[in-house]
């Protein structure tokens, strides 16, 4: 009997898994459904560039169908429920789908409401509309105190606020506003960046560019009248413009299905990516509660693992011992402005050793931005 694979979410993790599975399974080996709420695949790293006027929004989204293997059936609908007892996913509009193997790749949801007044009092670049709104605010900005901070953990792409600090410094210099602006970077930790070796590279550049670093600041509330924010650690900061990473949570369906733990994140085995307490269910990408970066890169390296596990189950063999184990691999760029960047590459056992920021890594990042559509969703280089 033909087996059914259902993949929920057509972001980096879901789209790539669908394409890899279609290629790996024999013709007719399984029916693969990819269910996505929007039917559009979005390149989220581009939001940062949109906010700073460095990229056009049109460049950031493509029709999922155009990126998907012909052998995968795309269902544009929202999954409203997952019934692991009956092995079915329930769609909001189109009935339900049975599965033998289920992949949950529903990413993060931005939880603005977790902090009262967050949206009226501050800006962010964590979604496309938010990035466009910030772009307007930056265009109209005439100087003052600009604070950059983090209003919830975990959040995706940990280097993004640091990159924003460097790029907004450049932006303000170009517009002749830098000497009228104080930039304060509010770090949740006691250093500029979570990885100590990267922090040692970043902190001196902050100092050189006049970006003030405040440490142990986890933003907890915002006062829209006083233009002030307060931290979990008990300090307050005044601002004219606040750019904050909003709180994140897991997708609604992960929560309502009862599969997720605190915050809506799915507990998974750190090597096999099997969802704890459910059979034949996998999760990857931002949706998991693994203590590693929520990044496209993480999803990219996880997808082949899920693919191998599912292919083995369908083909009735045991999974390849190496290819079915996720070792925690993540590779991220970190832009430091002025056409320089560094690269962070690590896994569960090996901490990153970032090279000195240089033009080379900046060029590599931009080459990646352009090549993304032709490489990542197709699984080239995995």
């Amino acid at each position, binding site marked *: 009997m033909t087996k059914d694979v259902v993949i929920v979410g057509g972001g980096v993790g879901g789209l790539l898994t669908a394409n890899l599975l279609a290629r790996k399974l024999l013709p007719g080996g399984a029916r693969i459904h990819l269910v996505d709420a929007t039917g559009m695949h979005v390149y989220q790293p581009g939001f940062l560039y949109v906010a700073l006027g460095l990229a056009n929004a049109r460049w950031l989204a493509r029709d999922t169908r155009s990126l998907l293997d012909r052998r995968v059936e795309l269902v544009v609908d929202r999954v409203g429920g997952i019934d692991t007892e009956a092995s079915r996913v329930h769609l909001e509009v189109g009935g339900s789908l049975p599965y033998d193997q289920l992949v949950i790749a529903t990413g993060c949801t931005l939880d603005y409401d977790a902090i009262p007044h967050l949206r009226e009092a501050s800006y962010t670049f964590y979604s496309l509309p938010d990035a466009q709104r910030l772009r307007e605010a930056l265009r109209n900005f005439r100087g003052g105190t600009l604070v950059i901070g983090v209003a*919830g*953990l*975990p959040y995706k792409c*940990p280097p993004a606020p640091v990159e924003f600090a460097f790029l907004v410094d450049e932006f303000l210099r170009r517009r002749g506003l830098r000497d009228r602006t104080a930039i304060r970077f509010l770090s*949740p*930790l*006691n250093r500029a960046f*979570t*990885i*100590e070796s990267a922090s040692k590279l970043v902190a001196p550049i902050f100092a050189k560019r006049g970006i003030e670093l405040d440490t*142990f600041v*986890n933003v907890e509330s915002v006062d829209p009248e006083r233009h002030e924010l307060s931290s*979990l*650690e*008990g300090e307050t900061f005044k601002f004219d413009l606040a750019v904050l990473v909003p709180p994140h949570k897991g997708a609604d369906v992960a929560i309502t299905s009862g599969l997720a733990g*605190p*915050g809506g994140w799915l507990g998974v085995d*750190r090597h096999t990516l099997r969802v704890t307490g459910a059979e034949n269910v996998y999760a990857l990408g931002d949706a998991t509660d693994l*203590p*590693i*970066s929520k990044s496209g890169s993480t999803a990219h390296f996880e997808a082949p693992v899920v693919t191998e596990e599912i292919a083995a189950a369908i083909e009735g063999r045991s999974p390849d011992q190496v290819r079915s184990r996720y070792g*925690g691999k*993540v590779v*991220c760029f970190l832009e430091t402005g002025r056409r320089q960047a560094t690269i*962070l590459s*690590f*896994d*569960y*056992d090996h*901490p*990153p050793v970032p090279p000195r920021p240089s033009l080379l890594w900046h060029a590599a990042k931009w080459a990646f931005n352009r090549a993304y559509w032709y490489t990542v969703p197709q699984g080239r280089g995995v």
Partner: protein
Amino acid sequence: MPLPVQREIDARGSFCPGPLMELIRAVRGSEVGDLIAVLSKDPGSRTDIPAWLKKAGHDLVAMEDEVGYTRFVARKVR
């Protein structure tokens, strides 16, 4: 016997976001009085975790050395 806790986070192998960020997020999502444990093999945690707990006004209840990692236990105080 390790101290029983409300929540334990295995942050071994976490370089980014790192064990301290995992602890901060767990503290945020816990109730006052809860005990939270985090496992870390990052040597930096031995200074970072106590320093944050002190600044944020929470208690470091234990720092237990195991083979190849340390188990930190914190109590949410406020």
